[in-house]
């Protein structure tokens, strides 16, 4: 028998954005995928980097970048190893 442990990710919902979305004109098919690595692994961050690297960047800081992409944060699933942002569009 398995049960969730303390490692189970924690969900935060951005109700301000999630409440009134209309996707009528949003969808056009295939996505674009960008993956940018800043170090070979999570345990090989360069000198000067924050101890938690990119995960130390507050969610609010990503909002400006996501505005340029035309996406808004609907919710964030936080865990020790990765934060998963669910975005509009």
């Amino acid at each position: 028998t398995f049960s969730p442990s303390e490692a189970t990710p924690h969900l935060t919902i951005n109700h301000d954005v999630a409440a009134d979305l209309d996707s009528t004109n949003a969808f056009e098919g295939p996505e674009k995928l960008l993956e940018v690595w800043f170090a070979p692994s999570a345990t090989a961050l360069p000198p000067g980097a924050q101890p938690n690297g990119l995960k130390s960047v507050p969610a609010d800081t990503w909002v400006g970048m996501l505005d340029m992409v035309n996406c808004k944060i609907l919710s964030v699933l936080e865990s020790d190893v990765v934060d998963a942002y669910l975005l509009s569009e």
Partner: protein
Amino acid sequence: SSMFVFPHKLILKTCGTTTLLLGLQRMLHIAAVDAGFPFHNAEAASDIRAAATPYRVFYSRKNFLFPDKQHGPHRSWKQEVKYLDDMFEGGSAYMVGKMNGDHWYLYITSPSQALTPPRTPDAEDLAATKIPTGKGYAPASQNDETLEILMTDLDPENAKQFYLSHASAVASDKLAAEARDARKKAADSVASLSGPAEEVDVFDNGDGEPIVDKDDATEGLTTEGHALGTVVSESCGLSDVYPVSTYPDARVDAYLFSPCGFSANGVIPPPPSAQGDVNNAGHYFTVHVTPEPNCSFASFETNVPGGQSGRTTAEIIEHVVSIFRPGRFSVTLFEAKGQSANPYGMGDKSVAPAAQRLVDPVKGYRRIDRIVHDFEDYDLIFRFYERE
């Protein structure tokens, strides 16, 4: 759309008419200023030009469906490559698959082989206009694989699941069933104590005051995007792709758009036995669905290693394809060379390399293409299928 933020990398996958690459410069700036990664082309992080030096960059996409609807550099692969080439040194662009059919594009930069630690910028760096990649890092030595399934021409009946009207009906039925079960359970409980009793309303706390407003509760659970996303995840079978019996700490965050469309992110922390292991830095999966008949599309992507006692890559593909029953789909498996391992397995953890794991046929489909790319430090397997 989805974004995954790890300590050392960021994955951004955006749908529809989003302008993904227009956010790249700001992303590099944030990595330099807020995360403290080394940067070039500026003397101080406060300089707006400061952009962190990436270790490596991947950009990929399926062939365009409606390029005229796209914005920025996203109207053609040529423009996208130019945008990336103008920004990075040493990138390589590829097209994989049939030019006159469904194909897939990839842009990739490779880490340099320099083994010196990151350094401060010199005059040459400050004068440069392009961002070097991989400068000053040793090559990666961890397992890394990404499986992506891109599906078009979804079966109309399966696609219905991703419309709000359909999901609301499923949610209502589910609520009604749960309420019936709760009433029966409460009635049975009372009956066991004092014989037959009146039906108990689960929304009533017994003193005539409702615990919650029944209509509001039903309304919320049958219209709110996250609530409906969860209902759809469970009813369509997505929640079972990585079952809790094998992945006990997995959690899914799903959203159903109005009037249709679906997105979900799953996070799978490493098992306790693998925590702290550089090769097992946690995993994710993400699903996006556009169900409209004129542009029906679904994507599934994961970096959960396939094989051994965890679910095999072939099982994952069969499961995902059965959810959508697409007319056509492509599978890409990108794997770091010689790094196959599954942290969820037991016993011998080594599994076959990517090329050997994508040999099983997919039931109900005929394979049209099988292409293998042997990159410097990654293997890429591309397969394309059509419904029989």
